[in-house]
């Protein structure tokens, strides 16, 4: 639990343990006019201690991607490969997935009430996973639950164990959900808009708690959010999704200072700063959000893109490394865009 007492050796840091390897993942649903590919050809790599942010607007496929990692998309068809510590999860049995869910891969959702059962006490819900996955007795599990409530800074933890979700505030409930996600000491936490439903001062508390938990453990996190601010505060690496595909991927500083995809750049420019000069008009992205039921044959962003040229309409651009000279993280910075010229500030 306490990583600071066991500092990782340098050789270990150079070759981080691969936890999750996703290749060519496609998630499809049946549609009236043929299949809808809500996630279309996504590759991801996650190692211990990684903090990956996935940013996108509604319909970008970011939540579907997260659900796919646990096989939770009801009625969907999966293609490609998702390997957890080498074990293939696409096509895996429900028993295999259940063994991983909650135990090795924890989840935090936007609305804590979707994760909490309103009829059961906090204590009962907290110990359920750790008893099933770890085989702890009731007393040992309750002791562990108290420890976790303390770790997520819930006041009066003993009393909370007997309370029901409706007796807690929104921020407190999300802390309980985080405690539930962490109680089995998972390798990976999947967090889908974990602070979107919270007030801004409570959001700040939860973000600070997530930072703290990560510093204490080596848990890898995939954080999905529509909010570039939340992503910038939390993630080390960022993937930008549009219409089911990753369109740009880089370490966070590069993505926020040297984005190369016109969509990423447009998203960044649409943020109103809280200080400094204020534009009289906000930069906009024209047109409408993409509809996966009727995507253009080429790049899905082409109809809204200011840099579009004839090649964009032919085939979707692949996500490839950017080989720009002088770029510090060139080998990790990837974009799916044919345009190679400069894009505006």
């Amino acid at each position: 639990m306490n990583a600071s007492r066991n500092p990782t050796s340098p050789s270990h840091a150079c070759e981080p343990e691969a936890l999750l390897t996703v290749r060519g993942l496609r998630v499809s649903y049946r549609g009236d006019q043929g299949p809808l590919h809500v996630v279309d050809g996504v590759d991801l790599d996650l190692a211990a201690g990684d903090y990956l942010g996935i940013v996108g607007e509604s319909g970008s496929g970011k939540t579907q991607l997260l659900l796919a990692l646990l096989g939770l998309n009801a009625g969907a068809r999966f293609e490609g490969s998702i390997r957890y510590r080498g074990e293939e999860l696409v096509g895996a049995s429900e028993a295999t997935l259940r063994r991983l869910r909650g135990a090795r891969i924890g989840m935090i959702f936007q609305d804590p009430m979707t994760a909490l059962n309103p009829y059961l006490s906090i204590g009962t819900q907290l110990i359920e996973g750790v008893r099933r996955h770890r085989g702890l007795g009731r007393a040992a599990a309750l002791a562990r639950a108290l420890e976790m409530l303390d770790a997520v800074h819930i006041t009066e933890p003993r009393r909370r164990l007997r309370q029901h979700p409706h007796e807690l505030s929104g921020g407190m409930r999300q802390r309980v959900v985080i405690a539930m996600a962490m109680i089995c000491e998972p390798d990976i936490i999947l967090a889908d808009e974990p602070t979107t439903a919270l007030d801004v001062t409570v959001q700040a508390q939860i973000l600070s708690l997530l930072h703290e938990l990560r510093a204490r453990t080596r848990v890898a996190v995939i954080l999905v959010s529509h909010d570039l601010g939340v992503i910038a505060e939390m993630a080390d690496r960022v993937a930008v999704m549009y219409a089911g595909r990753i369109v740009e991927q880089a370490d966070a500083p590069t993505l926020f200072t040297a984005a190369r995809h016109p969509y990423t750049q447009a998203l960044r420019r649409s943020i109103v700063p809280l200080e400094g000069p204020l534009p009289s008009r906000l930069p906009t992205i024209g047109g409408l959000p993409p509809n996966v039921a009727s995507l253009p044959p080429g790049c899905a962003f082409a109809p809204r893109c200011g840099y579009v040229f004839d090649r964009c309409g032919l085939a979707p651009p692949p996500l490839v490394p950017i080989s720009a000279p002088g770029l510090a993280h060139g080998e990790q910075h990837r974009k799916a865009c044919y345009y190679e010229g400069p894009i505006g500030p």
Partner: protein
Amino acid sequence: MTTPALAVEHLSVRYAVAGHARGLQALDDVSFFVQRGETLGVVGESGCGKSTLARALLRLVPSTSGRVLFRGEDLLALAGPELRAMREHLQVIFQDPLASLDPRLTVAEIIAEPLREFRRGLTRAERDERVGASLARVGLLPEHLRRYPHEFSGGQAQRIGIARALMLQPEFLVCDEPISALDASIKSQIANLLKDLQQEFQLSLLFIAHDLAAVRFSCDRIMVLYLGRVMEIAGRASLFESPRHPYTRALLQAVPIADPVRARARAVSPLSGEIPSPLSPPSGCVFRTRCPLAIARCAAEQPRLRRIGDNEVACHRAEELA
């Protein structure tokens, strides 16, 4: 000084709650004004009373006390045909654009509805012409007129709502979280549109939002609410650059910065605790239970809103926050 477009004086709203004799004080003695052609932002977190304020102005919830002066009359004292007549000049845009549009009506019918109600003398051709012009002004196409609300995205639906609200050329527009539910790429389109329309029609706006960045772009002055009370009112520059209330400061610091280097360099200590239940607000200053500057006086005495420099602040220790 000219008469403001809207002046609210000592407005209070209390909801009856079973088992609580004192009820829930959603708004407590709130006073402010909106100048002609001005946008006043109202910000605050859950339970601060911002939505109740919109509802009280529109007479969708009864007020316990206070006055709302609009076009020389107290809106709260109007009834029947007078109130109905006043609605012509005071329109509203809601947060959830799809929920605020009747799903059984076409876009043409939705936008024409205010005309049918208030401009009965118009011929059909005149009405169609106004509907078409209004639709074009908010950036929709003639082919959209025959479609139904469910065929539109959130941003387009909000444009329909705006077209409907502007049909009668109102003086005042209440915008209740008009862009909160929209995607980032659509938010800026709608924020720009509202700003353009405001200048074009010299509209006065009450802009309710929880998103401080949106408020900074859209508003001339900003009022900060907490648990039904005004914490601070100030012009945009003063509020964002030199906030005087500890709550305003905490709100501004809590907003994530979309810059990984700066975000990690700053040392933020989030406010502790959560918003108390409005059913049992703290004594004295309602913010004191979370305030890093609270002293004994804050529990004993409710701070009054007073002017310090360019800001109006309700805090006993505001001078120390220079």
